[in-house]
Every structure is written in C-alpha cells, then in structure tokens.
C-alpha cells in the first residue's frame, strides 16, 4: 500500500464546504488564471467549468512523487497552468483559461439557463444527454479522433471499454462519443464496516430498508441515485434470478429494467423510499463519508471515488472498511467534457483550444495526476502508454512480503483483447473488496452495471413529484388530536382578541 491521500487539501475543501453551509450556497467559485497579455500574438480565452475539487491543483510535496517504472510523476503547478504553458509551446498560441466550478449538474444547468457562458463543461452522463437532446452542444472535430496526431491523447488513450459505451449509446440517433469525451467514471456501491455488516447484506440494495441496521445506513440525497437503488431493491428477485442473468439479451434488458419509469414502478419506488426514510440514518450528499469514519453509520451508499476516499481516511484511524457492489445492478456513471454552442459557437480557435484541453488532461501522466489528486478513476487506460496500469499496480500491487494475494484481472478496461494476461495485478487479498475493487471494479461487477438514462420532461416531473412526496410531511398524516388542539387554541385566541377589543371599546 503506497497510496497516500492528500489529506490537507481535501480536508480544507471539506471545511470550506461545511462553512459555506448549504449545497445551494456553494454554486460557484471562480479562479481566473490570467497571464500578462502578450499584445503581439493572438490570444484565446477558454472558459472551463468543472466540478469542485475535480482537477489537480498542483503544489504536491516532494515525497508525494509517484515513482513509476516509466518515470516519476509529480504535480508542481496546477493542471490549468501547465496546460497554458503546454499549449503555447505546442501550438505557439497563448491561451488564457478562465476556470470555474459548479456544485451539482442541476446547478450547472440552471447557470447555463440563466445565461452564464462557458466553452467547455464537465457534467455527468445524464446531463450530457439532456444537453445533447436540447441541441446545445458542438460536436468534437474529426481531427480530435485522428489517432496519428501524437497530441490526440484522448483518442489514443481512452479505455476500449469506455469508448465502447460512448459509441453504443445514442440520443436522437447520434452517439455520445460524437459530442462528449469522458473524464472520470465509476460505479455506485455500498461502503460497509465488515465487523458489523455481513458482506451478503451489503451486496444488496435491500440493505437500505433492512431493519437489522435501523438508522445505521445512509442513502444519497438526490432523486436519481435514490431511484436507482430503490428499483434495484424492488426488482431484486428478478434481477438476481438465473433466467434473467443468462438471457442472451441480458445487458440491454438490465438497462431497460433499471430505467423503468412506469407509473406503477414510480409508485412502488415512492412507497419503498418512504420505508427507507424511516429506516435510514440520513439522506446525505457529503456527510456520509465522515459519519462512516467516525462509526456513526455502518453502511453508506457511495460513489466509488468517494468510497476510495472513505476507506483511505478510515484506515488512517485504524478502521478497515470494505466496499460492495450490489448483486442486483450497479449504476455506471461518467463525467465528460462537452463543448457548448453558447460559448464556442463557430470559433475554431476556441474549439481547438478546448479539444487540446481535453487531450492534455488525457495524457497518461496528467490523468494519473488528476486521479491521485481527486481519488476518482480516469477513463484513460493509456493505449500504448503503460503508465496508467503501472499506476494501478503501484497503488495496489502487493509488496513482496505479502502472504495472501489474489490475481486481479483488469484486461476488460485496459485492452480490447480480453484474453490478454498482461493486465493482472497481484494484490493483497483484501484489496479485492477494498480500494482496488472500488477504483477498478472487476469484470464481474461491470457485467451487472447499467447506465441511467436521462428522463424526458414528463418522466422527470413524475419522478420529482414522487421525490417531493417522499421528503415532505403529508397533511393527511396530521393526527386528529393535533387538529383538535389547534382548533381549540385558535378559538381561545379569537375569544381573547374579541374580549380585548370590546374592553377597549367600552374604555374609550
């Protein structure tokens, strides 16, 4: 275990988030990395908007150097600054990146609707689908996919598994890959304390309403993740049945089942989530990680990147947590770069800079820097460049003295040749259910992964209504005695008021 976490930075961010209070307050934080203007040459301004804490900001300590066989990697400057320098050196054009951040996909969408202009943004897959459907995106240029250009690191280095997903999913007859380049990806799963929770329980979405863990499990405070988990729990018997598993059309059927938005399913999900509300510890976005580490909760619905972070942090306190991918299905999610019509428009210089920004972040050493810094998994496998695999091995590979080891096969991610044996990590046995499993799930977990499509307006409305119903107190639930007391109180107050007024009247 060589992995170290940038505790300082992440802690600072957590505190900043806590201080800023509510999720809606922390909409944006803008940092402009402006350089002195060079008046002689043309200058391109690139407005990038990314998730908070989602790119390497540099300033690593010397001892954080990642010493791979193919050379050392360290983040001295921020990725954005490095990009500006690299772009000038490579293309002789000055680029000025205005980098800002957003808190949720919905925040980003609302910001765009309000007229904020960005050239390049990094939303999740369903928001990309929504933006595609609304015809707001500029397609990636043909040159971007030209693998003979040595600077096209994305096309050369993206994992074949991810490329496949981007090419096989369509919106209005156009593939995702035409408009979007992946950045980070992961699966949803359950982080749990193996001393208190059995692996079997953690490997099912039904843990969320399992009375054995009453008020000791957290669920995500957003409608999409909660919906997915609820559907998984409700259809558990079907999804885990052999006949369904062995269906030749299993993958497609799984996606259909997990994205079922029929009125009956929505109603069933509502009932289920109401049970969960009475059984779970909390609906959380960020606090679950800390509550897991301090032991307030035993299991925690988590995105894989945050799962890695939680397990790392807990280990520093001497607590060893495990990660499980539910048997029913797991949500595979992406964040990807897309170019906006409202920003790029017809400006070819801008588009070139935007695509170069994607490529620069896809260069294996930079992908590794970002991964190391934020804890999520890059879509980049490196192509011919071995460094990404070396990094996974450097992170999780067993030391020589390790006694119990497993051979962990990641061929599905790193190569098209799935029979290849070049991508096997010999890892400590427990890593197969800890950080390695969360960061690079095995092929088995990937087999039962399903994307979650974006819902159209009608579906969205129905599902959001369902969510509000789950979260709100229903007036029909007000007990009769409260109505009675309220009525009596109102009458008493009215009588007092009237008597008072009469008294005043007679006094005058």
């Amino acid at each position: 275990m060589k992995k170290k976490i940038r505790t300082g930075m992440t802690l600072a961010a957590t505190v900043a988030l806590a201080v800023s209070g509510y999720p809606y307050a922390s909409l944006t934080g803008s940092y402009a990395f402006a350089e002195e203007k060079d008046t002689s040459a043309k200058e391109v301004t690139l407005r990038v908007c990314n998730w908070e804490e989602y790119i390497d900001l540099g300033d690593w300590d010397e001892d954080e150097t990642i010493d791979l066989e193919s050379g050392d990697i360290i983040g001295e400057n921020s990725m954005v600054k490095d990009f500006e320098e690299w772009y000038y050196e490579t293309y002789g054009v000055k680029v000025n990146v205005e980098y800002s951040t957003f808190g949720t996909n919905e925040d980003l969408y609302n910001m765009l609707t309000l007229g904020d202009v960005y050239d390049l943004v990094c939303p999740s897959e369903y928001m990309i689908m929504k933006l595609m459907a609304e015809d707001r995106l500029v397609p990636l240029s043909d040159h971007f996919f030209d693998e003979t250009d040595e600077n096209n690191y994305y096309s050369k280095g993206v994992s074949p598994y991810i490329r496949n997903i981007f090419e096989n999913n369509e919106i209005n007859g156009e593939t995702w890959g035409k408009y979007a380049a992946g950045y980070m990806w992961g699966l949803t799963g359950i982080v749990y304390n193996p001393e208190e929770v059995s692996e079997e329980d953690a490997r099912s979405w039904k843990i969320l309403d399992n009375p054995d863990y009453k008020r000791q499990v957290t669920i995500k405070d957003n409608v999409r993740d909660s919906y997915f988990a609820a559907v998984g729990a409700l259809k558990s018997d079907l999804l885990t049945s052999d006949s369904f598993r062995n269906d030749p059309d299993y993958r497609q059927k799984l996606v259909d089942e997990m994205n079922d938005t029929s009125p009956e399913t929505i109603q069933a999900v509502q009932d289920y989530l109401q049970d969960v509300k009475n059984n779970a510890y909390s609906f959380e976005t960020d606090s679950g990680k800390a509550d897991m580490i301090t032991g307030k909760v035993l299991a925690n619905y988590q995105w894989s990147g945050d799962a890695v972070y939680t397990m790392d942090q807990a280990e520093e306190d001497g607590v060893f947590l495990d990660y499980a991918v539910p048997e029913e299905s797991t949500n595979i999610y992406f964040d990807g770069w897309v170019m906006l019509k409202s920003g790029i428009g017809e400006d070819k210089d801008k588009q070139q800079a935007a695509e170069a920004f994607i490529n620069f972040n896809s260069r294996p050493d930079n992908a590794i820097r970002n991964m190391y810094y934020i804890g999520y998994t890059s879509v980049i496998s490196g192509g011919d460049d071995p460094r990404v695999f070396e990094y996974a091995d450097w992170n999780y590979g067993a030391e020589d003295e390790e006694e119990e080891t497993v051979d962990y096969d990641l061929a599905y991610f790193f190569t098209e040749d799935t029979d290849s044996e070049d991508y096997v990590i010999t890892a400590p046995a427990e890593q197969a259910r800890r950080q390695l499993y969360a960061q690079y799930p095995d092929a088995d977990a990937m087999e039962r992964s399903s994307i979650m499509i974006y819902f159209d307006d009608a579906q969205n409305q129905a599902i959001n209504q369902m969510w509000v119903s789950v979260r709100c107190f229903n007036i029909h639930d007000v007990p009769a005695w409260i109505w009675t007391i309220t009525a009596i109180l109102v009458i008493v107050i009215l009588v007092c008021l009237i008597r008072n007024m009469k008294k005043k009247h007679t006094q005058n």
Partner: protein
Amino acid sequence: MRKFSFSRKSLGVPYALFLFVFVIAPLLVLFYYAFTDGQGQFTIANLTGFFTNPNTLGTLCYSFALAIVTTAVCLLLAYPIAYILAFSNIKSKSVILMLFVMPMWINFSLRITALKEVLTVLEGNLAMHPFLNAVIGMTYDFLPFMILPIYTTISRLDKALREAAMDLGANEFETFLKITLPLSVPGIISGVSMVFLPAMTNYVVLDMLYNSTYIMGSLIGSYFAAYNWHGGSMIALILLGIICLFTLLTGGSEEENTRGGALL
C-alpha cells in the same frame, strides 16, 4: 443653499439604486416566475397547486409546528433569564449576558457540527429523534435573539410602576402579572418574530442534524433542483405573504401596546 440641497438628494441615489437592484427587481422577477408557466403564459396554477397538494400543505404545517415549538421553547428559556438578569444586582450582569450571546460569534455550521456530536453522545443514535433534534438545534441557534430584546425591554422598565403596584397592595406575583409582563410584551414580540420566521425556513439545521423531512426552505430548493422555477417562486412568494401578514399583525399590536404603556 441650492447646491447643498442638491447634494443631499444625490446622496440618496445609491440607496435607491440598491433598493431597486436588490429588492424591487428580484421581487418583480419572483412575481413573474410565480405567475407564469413554462411557456411564459400567465397562470395561477402554481398558486392553486400549492393549496391543493397535500405535500406542500403538509410541509407548511410541519414548518409551522417546528417554528411554534422552537419559539415557545426559546421564550420559556429566555424570559426567566432576561427577567433574572434585569432585576438582579449582581455586578457581572453584562458578563453573564455576554456568555449567553457569545455562541453567536462562533460560526454557525461549526456550532451545529459540535452540537451533533454532543447529541450523538446523549441520544446514542441521532437519527432516532429528528423532530426533537431540529428543535434543539434551532433553539440553540436562535436563543440569543430571544433573550436580547426581552432583556432590553425589561431593564428599561420604570421601577416606579412596580413600586407603586406593591404600595397599593399587589404581591410579587400580581405585580409581575399585571405590570412587568404586559409592559415587556413589545420585547417578546420582537423576540418572537426574530425566532419564528427563520425557524420556518432554516433547513440547514435540519440537514446537518439529519432530519430528512422538508421544511419550507428545502421545499423551495427541491423545486429549483428539478428546474421548476415557477413552482419554487410561488412557494417563496407565499412564504413572503405569510411573513408580511405576521409582521402586520405583530406590528399592529406592538403599536397598541406602547400606547397602552403610555396610558398606564
């Protein structure tokens, strides 16, 4: 002379501008969204929708209940403290008062996070008592806003009035009931309005203490997260209406009471 009056007028321009940009204009936008639908057509469906939906009405009730209980607890705690402080002869009065107010100087989310840990120790599992936690959290947060106005009012009471009542044969309790309490009503009212209204909307306390039921503030947030700006604006507007109504009612009686005080 002319020049002087001109410059005095122009001093008000920044304030007028401020009022327009940050108060009037947003309010107009709020009205626009509240009374239009997705196509920009005029509609009152958002208004009727609020009063026919059992969930939004339930949220209103829940917020009211939370605010009423919080305000009552704050009042019951604050009044005796303010009363004792105002009438005691201890020299360290201002120090004690400061101790009650001091938590306000510490960052809000830090205080609630600390409270979360304390409640976890006391209750075992925090998530078992969501309503109680919300009340405790809000009371902790808003108590100084109740103590200060009541203390100020009571300490400014004319002692002669109480002495007169005693001279005329009233005992301690009667003096309190007939002199001190009625005269401190303005302080109570300003305390209540400073606690009641934030308690209806401050959902951060609920979020941080894991009460997963929406109150008015979080309900508005959820509408905006679902891109329904129209419904969200309408709820904000209704809340504004409730606050206006509340202020009118209490403001009216406050005036009455000061007059009543003068009469006495």
